[in-house]
């Protein structure tokens, strides 16, 4: 059913942690789940508006997240993504608009009554409680029905097992690492069995190596539980690698809401094109493989600029215009070249052994995007 090793691992995990929150009979039918089988409702936002100090922070925002989907709100700081998240969680009251979680209007409810659970950017663990007490707190507040101590202990253990943290049960948050604190915060959110999981910049306080691991962990758990999730981030790589869909925000509006692949290959606006991935932005248009003045703005991805050094043979050896290498920045498994052609200076990605600075050859533009008034009008290729 699936060839993805991560997902089949997720399914087998789900089978052996039968007491995990929200884990029920769905995994016991024998067939490996492909993950993301929705257990929760979706999120439906309509006409959400927030004005702070005379400035419109969020401007009539509409967004629909499907049940079981993981969506990232991606944008630069100050674009309103955190404000949006805080309105969904209930910490900010919108001036107008509607927020539906699982088909239920929640806009008039306080944060304690909403069916969403949030993982805070700084994790917001209570330092005077142990890891287990932190996770147990939301359960101890339940009134209808009131949970017995045994049930609470069982669910706390299950949640901690889910994030692989049982051994730190009795530690204070200050005594465990940043990554472990983050997993505690995640367990505290998941133990509530929320309809909607909200994560505010979940990886920003972790170092680069841990970040990759944690984002895989979060994705895996999200898939396993099939929980509708909204992540706020300013890191495009983070958003691209985790999300089913990404909503790119700018100045209180959603510029584009689509899959990571589509966002990259067909950015709806110039802003999205520059914010997601790297881009050569050149004013003009392309005629016969040459950039000429006039028209709108060209967006050329560096990987679509091919540089072939003189003397090298290859299929595109005589395509493109004469070019000189001005700068070489090694990036590990590839190098970023800056090449000067007679019509423009372009960045290009080179795999294999990079040419030396000053090397001469030809640079060819294979694909490009054409924008007018900031909007994508045409995708071109040579």
């Amino acid at each position: 059913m699936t060839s993805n090793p991560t997902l089949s691992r997720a399914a087998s995990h789900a089978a052996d942690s039968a007491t995990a929150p929200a884990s029920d009979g769905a995994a016991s039918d024998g067939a490996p789940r492909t993950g993301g089988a929705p257990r929760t409702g979706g999120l439906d936002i309509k006409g959400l508006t927030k004005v702070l100090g005379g400035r419109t922070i969020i401007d009539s925002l509409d967004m629909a997240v499907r049940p079981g989907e993981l969506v990232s709100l991606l944008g630069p700081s100050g674009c309103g993504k955190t404000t949006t998240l805080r309105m969904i969680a209930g910490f900010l009251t919108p001036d107008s608009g509607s927020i539906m979680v699982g088909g239920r209007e929640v806009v008039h409810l306080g944060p304690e009554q909403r069916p969403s659970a949030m993982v805070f950017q700084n994790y917001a663990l209570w330092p005077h409680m142990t890891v287990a007490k932190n996770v147990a707190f939301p359960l101890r507040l339940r009134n209808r029905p009131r949970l017995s101590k045994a049930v609470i202990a069982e669910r706390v253990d299950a949640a901690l097992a889910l994030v692989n943290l049982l051994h730190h049960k009795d530690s204070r948050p200050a005594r465990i690492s940043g990554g472990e604190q983050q997993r505690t915060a995640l367990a505290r959110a998941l133990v509530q069995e929320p309809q909607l999981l909200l994560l505010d910049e979940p990886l920003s306080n972790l170092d680069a190596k841990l970040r990759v691991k944690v984002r895989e962990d979060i994705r895996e758990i999200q898939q396993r539980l099939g929980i509708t999730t909204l992540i706020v981030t300013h890191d495009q790589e983070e958003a691209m690698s985790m999300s089913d869909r990404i909503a790119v925000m700018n100045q209180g509006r959603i510029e584009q809401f689509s899959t990571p692949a589509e966002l990259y290959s067909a950015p709806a606006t110039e802003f999205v094109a520059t914010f997601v991935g790297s881009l050569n932005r050149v004013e003009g248009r392309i005629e016969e493989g040459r950039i000429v003045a006039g028209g709108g703005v060209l967006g050329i991805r560096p990987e679509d600029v091919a540089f072939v050094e003189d003397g090298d043979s290859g299929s595109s050896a005589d395509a493109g215009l004469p070019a000189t290498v001005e700068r070489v920045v090694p990036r590990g498994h590839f190098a970023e070249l800056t090449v000067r052609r007679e019509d423009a200076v372009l960045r290009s990605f080179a795999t294999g052994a990079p040419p030396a600075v000053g090397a001469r050859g030809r640079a060819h533009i294979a694909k490009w995007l054409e924008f007018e008034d900031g909007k994508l009008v045409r995708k071109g290729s040579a």
Partner: protein
Amino acid sequence: MTAVSRKVLARALAAVFAVALAVFIIGPLAWLAVRAFADSWTYPNLLPDGWTLHWWEVVFRDRSLGIAVQNSLFFAPLTVLVSALVCLPAAYAFARFEFPGRRFFLIGLFAANAFPKMGLFVSLAALFYAFNLMNSILGILIVHVLGTVVFMTWIPAAAFAAVPRSLEEAARDAGASKLRVFFSVTLPMALPGILVAAIMSFLASFDEAQGTYLVGAPDYMTMPTQMYSLVLNYPTQVAAVFSILLAIPSVALLLAAHKHIVGGQLAEGFQIK
């Protein structure tokens, strides 16, 4: 001069300084302790002429001194309690809400400490006569609480303000009501600061003499006010005995606090570790 001899010199200077500091702090206390057991002690003798427990007997036999001890142990805890009830909500408001005149009131709390105490108490006495509070428990309590308002507001306000808002928000997100958030998250986290304020208030109340004397004497004598009549009516040895007695609760409290300071939670309040 070699580096080694310079190091030795530095150490010697540090040692001399430490001894001088110790003498400065411990000297008067040692003198007091010796004095309490001294028969007579005349210049230029380095030690008293004879030793006696007579002065302790005098103190313990005097009924009014026993009553003073009782009064002190009655007023100090009550003061801490009343002060906490009055000031902690104010401290929370100062820490968490922005309201008109917030800074004015916050600075205004220092007013009671900005003037010479005696001047303040004299005008207070005029008010107390008008409201029939002279020679009353309530009157003394008001004077004592007045002296603790600054500690009990500023220190807990700082402690409340230091509780990150996201920790409170996380509790609300988890399903806690505002009241529950306060008692489960905000208060426990601010507790070290509040305990520091409580200890300082207890000691301030225990030590309060001027206002208590003015409002309470002669019906309600506490240990510090009793000191005045002792110094005037008895030999200095009795005063020495009494100041040792007066110091016992403070020292005991500090020792108890010390245990917790090393334990960690209070250290967070004192910002030492």
